[in-house]
């Protein structure tokens, strides 16, 4: 009975992680804003920054992977492989979130020493949507860290809970 609740808990976690990564992906892709002043039109899309493109790609990969693992049967030998793949996906998620956050921070505050002006004042709706996508990405990351610890626990029994 405990096994069944653990397995359902793991499935719920993975479904939530899939949902969060998908949400981050969708919110980032649909973020664009056109602002115009003095007959100069400025359009901000997620493809302007390389870091945001990488964020979209990384979250897409994680979403697809989560969706596939949801259907992995219980007795498959691939669960041992899932541990290392979960670690790789967590590294992908942290790196994409960290890069997007670094670039978004420059967009919001600018960099006085490099002469880079902040752009959030001109396209506030774009900035808000990017912030939302980053928060969803952070939630996906936290869930993936928990999933990583859970996969480690389910493949290897380090607390010696199974008596021989």
């Amino acid at each position: 009975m405990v096994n069944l609740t653990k397995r359902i808990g793991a499935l719920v976690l993975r479904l939530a992680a899939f949902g969060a990564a998908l949400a981050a992906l969708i919110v980032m892709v649909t973020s664009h804003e056109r602002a115009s002043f003095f007959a100069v039109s400025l359009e901000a899309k997620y493809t302007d920054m390389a870091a945001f493109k990488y964020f979209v790609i990384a979250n897409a990969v994680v979403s697809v992977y989560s969706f596939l693992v949801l259907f992995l049967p219980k007795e498959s030998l691939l669960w041992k492989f899932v541990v290392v793949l979960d670690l790789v996906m967590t590294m992908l998620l942290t790196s994409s979130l960290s890069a997007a956050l670094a670039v978004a921070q420059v967009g919001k505050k600018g960099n006085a020493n490099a002469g880079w002006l902040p752009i959030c004042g001109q396209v506030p709706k774009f900035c808000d949507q990017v912030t939302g996508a980053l928060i969803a990405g952070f939630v996906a990351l936290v869930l993936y860290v928990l999933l990583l610890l859970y996969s480690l626990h389910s493949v290897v029994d380090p607390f010696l809970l199974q008596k021989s």
Partner: protein
Amino acid sequence: MPGEKILLAGGGTSKSWKLLLALRILAFIATLAAAIVMGLNKETKTLVVATIGTIPIKATLTAKFQDTPAFVFFVIANAMVSFHNLLMIALQIFSRKLEHKGFRLLSVAILDMLNSTLVAAAANAAVFIAELGKNGNKHAKWNKVCDRFTTYCDHGRGALIAAFAGVILMLLVSSVSISRLSINSKKSSTAAAVASP
């Protein structure tokens, strides 16, 4: 859950011990090099900022890594991960006999996984900011930095390469640590039991 669970018992073989030690030493060197090279990254240059009439106005500008929060995070994270590797090397060398006691192997594996994600995040943030500095961004009207501060960019590039080598090495270290948690009866060095419920 898989049909068979493997009990934890004594750690891996001496071959995996040597492999882990070698990988850890390389990861320590790589992350330490990245932290030091970026930490000492500074360039001062006198540039012509504007021209009034025929008199050029010169200003002395300094490019240092503290200007960019991503590089500060890079230096701190690489220093932390190299310190973690140093600690683990010391633990591995000096208390080899006590490896199977308690949660030692599990905590080493978890710490390795967390630190590998940390160094991946730091290296990636720095590389995207460096790409902004090298190519600029014409949509946001951010101009390049690298054409004026070439030494700064070169040192940064070296630090980034070292950090990415550290990322790959930390991934390998985590994998070997995780594999040392479980015992294969063919290559165990202490008594192990494989349970099939």
